[in-house]
């Protein structure tokens, strides 16, 4: 994310795989079985995706008659077109397209706000500690474990009283509330290993609370920010419960639309369209993982794993 800003801390923890010396202490003849095991697990992980992709390119009769893993005989992209822009989502035959934008409008602000709050919290909890700070961190952390089904009704009532029930800011607010625990956890653990001397030195130089945060902490937070953003984005993008409960007709997110596409109680099931739609709905998170995947491990390394 911040390739240029190599700070002290990052240089210290940057031990990427390529830069390391050999750790292979296995005899060479086992390497075949090693690749075999890794390959078998690749099959396990890829199988559901394969099923989805293959069947999304088949015409419907071929799916109902043929095997699950067979390649399409008649390749067609009509299911994809249908899922994106023609399929019936309720009364409107809009496909998933408009809901995609709703999801982006929801996820981007929610992730940004939650990440920033988490960073500030982590900064305060590690560099400006006060008696009881650890207790407060523990209290915040417990929020990770709240089952969301349990808080729907009181949340709805609070949103109503705040006057943001059924609005986009309302959903964003809910996601921020239940994302703070995780983002605080990530940043706090990351900042815990950040040299406090640097902060003290800056303080003596007259730098203020926020100056230190903007100039010293944030620029070196790249690795953990990646982890936090990936985590939050995945959770928020994939959320169905909050989306279904707290959105209005004009703010329903992608998952709700996908669910409407896939779950029909008394209609004909177009599996090829369902699969195409499912992949489309998952595309943003997939891309995030593929693009940022290697930073993810690096970020984990530099922060949360050290506990």
């Amino acid at each position, binding site marked *: 994310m911040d390739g240029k800003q190599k700070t002290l801390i990052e240089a210290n923890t940057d031990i990427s795989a390529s830069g390391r010396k050999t750790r292979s202490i296995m005899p060479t003849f086992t390497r075949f079985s090693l690749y075999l095991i890794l390959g078998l697990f690749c099959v396990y992980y890829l199988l559901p995706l394969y*099923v989805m992709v293959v069947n999304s390119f088949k015409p419907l009769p071929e799916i109902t008659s043929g095997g699950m893993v067979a390649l399409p005989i008649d390749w067609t992209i009509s299911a994809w077109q249908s899922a994106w822009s023609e399929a019936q989502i309720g009364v409107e035959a809009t496909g998933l397209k408009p809901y995609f934008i709703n999801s982006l409008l929801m996820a981007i602000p929610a992730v940004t706000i939650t990440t920033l709050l988490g960073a500030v919290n982590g900064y305060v909890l590690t560099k400006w500690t006060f008696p009881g700070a650890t207790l407060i961190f523990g209290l915040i952390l417990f929020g990770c474990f709240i089952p969301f089904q349990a808080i729907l009704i009181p949340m709805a009532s609070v949103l109503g009283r705040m006057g943001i029930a059924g609005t986009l800011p309302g959903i964003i607010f809910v996601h921020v509330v239940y994302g703070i625990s995780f983002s605080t956890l990530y940043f706090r653990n990351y900042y815990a290993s950040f040299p406090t001397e640097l902060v003290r030195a800056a303080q003596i130089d007259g730098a203020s609370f926020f100056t230190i945060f903007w100039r010293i902490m944030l620029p070196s937070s790249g690795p953990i920010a990646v982890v936090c953003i990936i985590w939050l984005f995945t959770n928020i993008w994939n959320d169905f419960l909050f989306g279904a409960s707290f959105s209005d007709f004009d703010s329903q997110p992608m998952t709700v639309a996908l669910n409407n596409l896939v779950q029909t109680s008394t209609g004909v099931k177009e599996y090829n369209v369902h699969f195409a739609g499912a992949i489309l709905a998952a595309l943003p998170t997939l891309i995030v993982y593929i693009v940022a995947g290697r930073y993810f491990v690096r970020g984990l390394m530099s922060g949360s794993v050290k506990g």
Partner: protein
Amino acid sequence: MKNRNHIGVLDRLQFQLPKIVLSPSVAIIVIFVYGFILYTSYLSFTGSKMLPNFNWVGLQNYITLFRSRTWDTSVTNLAIFSVLYIGICCFIGLMLAILLDQKIRNEGFIRITYLYPMALSFIVTGVAWKWILDPGIGLEAVLQGWGWESFSFRWIKERDMAIYTIVIAAVWQTSGFVMATFLAGLRGIDNEMLRAAQLDGASTFAYYRRIVIPQLRPAFMSAFVVLAHMAIKSYDLVIALTGGGPGNATSMPATFMYSYTFTRNQMGIGAASAVMMLMTVAAIIVPYLWSELREKK
């Protein structure tokens, strides 16, 4: 900063600023986590049906809850599921991390292949999983079609085995993430240690068991928190795969709570089950948090 008094105010502000900055988050957590827990606890003592009401009924909901066969099944299922899920995820995650750490070609590709399921929700992958596990069209049918006539894999249709299919899908989703966590931990281990061990002539197994794995404790901890919270919240997974069936054989506390609160119009009982869930979580997580946080002081 000429005025002494002025400096005092600034100082005091500077001194208080961190707490001021932290307070919105704390307020949010106090209201939306602890306030709601209190609210739910209160509801669990009321006769709430379709919507919340405040008619006090004492312990009635808890009595009904403990007499419910489905709740019994749910709790047993959660126990089986969490032990297997957390255990297998940690085992597979650790194994794959160690294997991947052997200077593997295409490591980047493999890593993302293992990690990507975490990006998908079960709304997306549920149908595919249902197909794979279904004996009529899934794995069993495919392997039999390839000539392996005696192959049988019909767990999802069997009351006693269906819960294990949920473990399979859950492990699929998260084990890659655990792998990444462990891999990060492994990469953080000092190379000097390795060389010393090699000079000592330690076997591979002994090397990992005695030197590497003990150092992964923090990684285990992070993995545990993530896995435990996934296990307790597991809802989408069950709904997508079995809908709680066959019968109620794969019902879990999260699905139980949801169905009583929202579809069965017995919100009081739903709240009671939520309280039981929260208490279980607290019993496991609080000691862990306490030991972790205290140590660091």
